[in-house]
């Protein structure tokens, strides 16, 4: 724990610089002072350049990763300590109280329904909800499909944390025999636990999430394979695990206050395609995202990465995009000068 206290200033001091930098940069752009803004940007980046861009990455992301690894370790330790009584080895059934917040489309309000559900050591939250629907209340609506954490349907808020219902064991999550369930309020609500994804999908589309190739004939009528080394694969692989469940957007404090922001899911996918060595869109992708509502609205709260059930780390992806955009901008400035 001590170490993480030490690393706090390392994270937050340079982080505080970013919004100030951006604010000044935005003002100079808005006032049309393009040249000044570029010079200003170049000068203000000196501090970061001392580290070199990779150093910048190491300081920011290294501490972020360290922090999250430590957090995970602590969580795991806590889990192991208090787990002896809930480890699914005990037999028999338990009655668990499900407090379900439901959105009523007619009254446009959230209403709470309470159900007592018989669960066993292996029941996950989705099992519990399906049992309610089949045996007690057929009017309860939720999305679900694969029940193995890969289709991304059953995102909801379980005990206050955006989670996948099918990946969360009831007994492990129940507190004093109760579990609270609510829809993702960060998305428009449709009915009960079902939310509207139209806006979410549109934002995903905004980043042009597909592999861009110049030779369309080869793309659709393949005769060979594209070259890609293991190292190149590793650059985008972690970001390609996104199941589009919407949990990160639900958790993002920026999207929740500023719906214009493209958000963590779409941006992580933008980086996924940008970092893929097979993609030929290049810096056009960066220019497309060099907007306030693009990468720059991200305040690096990193709650997206905290809730992501697949370990995608959208916060990391967005910071990498910012770095790439700045790098790209700097190199273009060099071109202009020469």
């Amino acid at each position, binding site marked *: 724990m001590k170490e993480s206290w030490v690393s706090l200033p390392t994270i937050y001091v340079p982080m505080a610089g970013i919004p100030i930098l951006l604010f000044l940069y935005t003002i100079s752009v808005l006032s049309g002072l393009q040249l000044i803004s570029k010079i200003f940007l170049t000068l203000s980046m000196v501090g970061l350049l001392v580290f070199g861009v990779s150093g910048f990455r190491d300081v920011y992301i290294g501490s972020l990763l360290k922090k999250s690894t430590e957090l995970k370790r602590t969580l795991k330790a806590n889990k192991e300590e208090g787990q002896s009584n809930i480890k699914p080895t005990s037999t028999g059934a338990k009655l668990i109280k499900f407090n379900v917040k439901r959105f009523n489309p007619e009254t446009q309000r959230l209403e709470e329904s309470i159900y007592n559900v018989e669960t066993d050591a*292996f029941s996950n939250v989705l099992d519990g909800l399906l049992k309610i629907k089949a045996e007690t209340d057929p009017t309860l609506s939720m999305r679900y499909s694969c*029940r193995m954490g890969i*289709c991304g349907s059953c995102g909801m808020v379980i005990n206050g944390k955006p989670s996948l219902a099918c*990946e969360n064991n009831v007994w492990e999550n129940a507190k004093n025999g109760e579990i609270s369930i609510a829809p993702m309020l960060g998305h428009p609500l*449709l009915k009960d636990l079902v939310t509207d994804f139209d806006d979410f999908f549109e934002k995903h*589309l905004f980043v042009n999430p597909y*592999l861009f190739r110049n030779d369309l004939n080869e793309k*659709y009528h393949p005769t060979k394979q594209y070259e890609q080394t293991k190292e190149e694969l590793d650059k985008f692989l972690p970001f*390609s695990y996104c199941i589009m469940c919407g949990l990160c957007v639900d958790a993002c404090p920026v999207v929740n206050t500023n719906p214009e922001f493209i958000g963590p899911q779409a941006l992580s996918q933008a980086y996924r395609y940008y970092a893929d060595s097979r993609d030929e869109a290049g810096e056009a992708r960066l220019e497309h995202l060099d907007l306030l509502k693009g990468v720059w609205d991200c305040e690096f709260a990193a709650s997206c990465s905290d809730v992501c059930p697949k370990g995608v780390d959208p916060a990391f992806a967005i910071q990498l995009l910012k770095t790439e955009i700045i790098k790209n901008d700097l190199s273009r400035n060099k071109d202009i000068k020469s």
Partner: protein
Amino acid sequence: MFIFNIGYSFYMEILDFDLIILGSGIAGLTAAIHATNASKGQIKIAIVTKLHAMRSHSVSAEGGISGVLYPDETHDSTELHAYDTIKGSDYLADQDAVELLVKNAPTEVRFFDHIGVSWNRDDKSKIQQRAFGGMSIPRTAFAADKTGFFMMRALYDEVSNMKNISIFHEHFAYNLLIDKNKFVGLSVLDLATGSSSIFKAKTAIVATGGASRLYSFTTTAHSTTGDGIALVYKAGLPLKDMEFVQFHPTALVPNGILITEAARGEGGYLLNSKGERFMEKYAKSKMELAPRDIVSRAIITEMKAGNGFKHEESGLGYVNLDLRHLGEKTINERLPMIKEIAQKSIDLDPIKDLLPIRPAAHFTMGGINTDIFGRVLSDENKTPVNGLWAIGECGCVSVHGSNRLGSNSLSQCSVWGRLAGNAVAKYLELNKSFINISKDVVSSEERTIVELLDRKGNTNPYFIKSELQKTMDENLYVYRNKEDMLKARRHIADLKNAFKDIYIQDKGKVFNTNLRDVLEIENLLELAEAVTICAINRKESRGAHAVVEYPNRDDTNWLKHTVIYKTNNGTGISYSPVKITSWKPEPRVY
């Protein structure tokens, strides 16, 4: 999607398209891409899916996709791939269809490389291939153990970029309209608004996947209720080989989640309660990598002989899958998802623990009767229905015969996705007119949903569903016997009667999943009946259909496809021959 916000009691909207693709799995989305390309973006396509398009069950495919990629280096050939597939099918596959599959599969693996799938690669940047059951050479390309997921995401991203394609997420098709042997349209319920509309089109491709939710212990998603197969069947068109349901040998106990065959492909063992690798007794040369029908039968035989374990909470019998000797590196690199699933769902770690597994319903080898190009046939004489295709798991081309080899399904979906997409584009060049839909049809379609909601019965539809699944689990599992199958048939008839008395408690319009579930249960009842009748009818053991009374394959009488169709007073059965090109049936030994 709030575009069609029209209530039940008003006029029902009719939308026009050139092509409707029903279902958004790998087959459907691939077809959409190739139909678009073949027509240079000129045809107007609707993808109608009851889920969000990227959430189709194809995402759950784990192990990989088969295809001969580097014949020179691996000494593999398409002929060998074809032979493996045909032998695996217990000689019921149509061999011309198999040839089409193996010839086109390598192109499809490269196509997925071109749209962004992150294939596992070796040090020379070559796509790696792993061993799979029944394949004589490792020829399964893979992206860790999330192959289907990566393919789906790449396809969805590619499709959503195409301007001529509209995706209708969460739209449930409840009726297929056919007039004079030509496809006319679909009646579709928009789940978000509860309003119905008619989607009229010149052509349609049904790609709705299988029906493994006929069983409660299954590897497949809650959504795999075979709706497309049932739609076609209810419209009076025939189904083929419905008795062949694949049971995947290694589904996790107690939840049925799939542990990919790749776990055995990478070297995993199956152990009985005595700690023996029992597959030695059943398939000496292939051991755990024998085809799925053989491994599933072996597991059941072991458990019946008292060499299994019993899971306390669920009461399910099981044997163990041992992956511990593969080591942490292999498991993390090549099987990360099954590790994650085992940890999250039953708190076991395959690096340290044995995994409890038993066979579970996994794949529908049968399905909509089609020719080898995926065109839906209206009878056993190969008369095609104009403008209607069925591809992927819901169609029976028949490339898998009585038992599919692992990793051939993803190739099947992509190969026939391309073939059907191209074929539709060609068909539309010659057939430019719609068939008009009469007012009577529109009003009767409109009434369907209203009447269903107004029904004043007493029976809980979910009770019917669980009874149906229980019957199928008990009576039409890996080994079948006459008495059980007849019992199942009687029970299903009772349940069909009980269904007339169901009650839909949710009367709301917005996202009424109670209503959707009832529509699905109706489809399941139809398909359960078809499976049972076909199974009772086939008096031999072949591939996935193992009958205690008839333990042997009977090529003299049963080397033929079962074709089942609805008649005015029940069902009729006829047969169509198996197409044999180069590979004569021989005893199947592994």
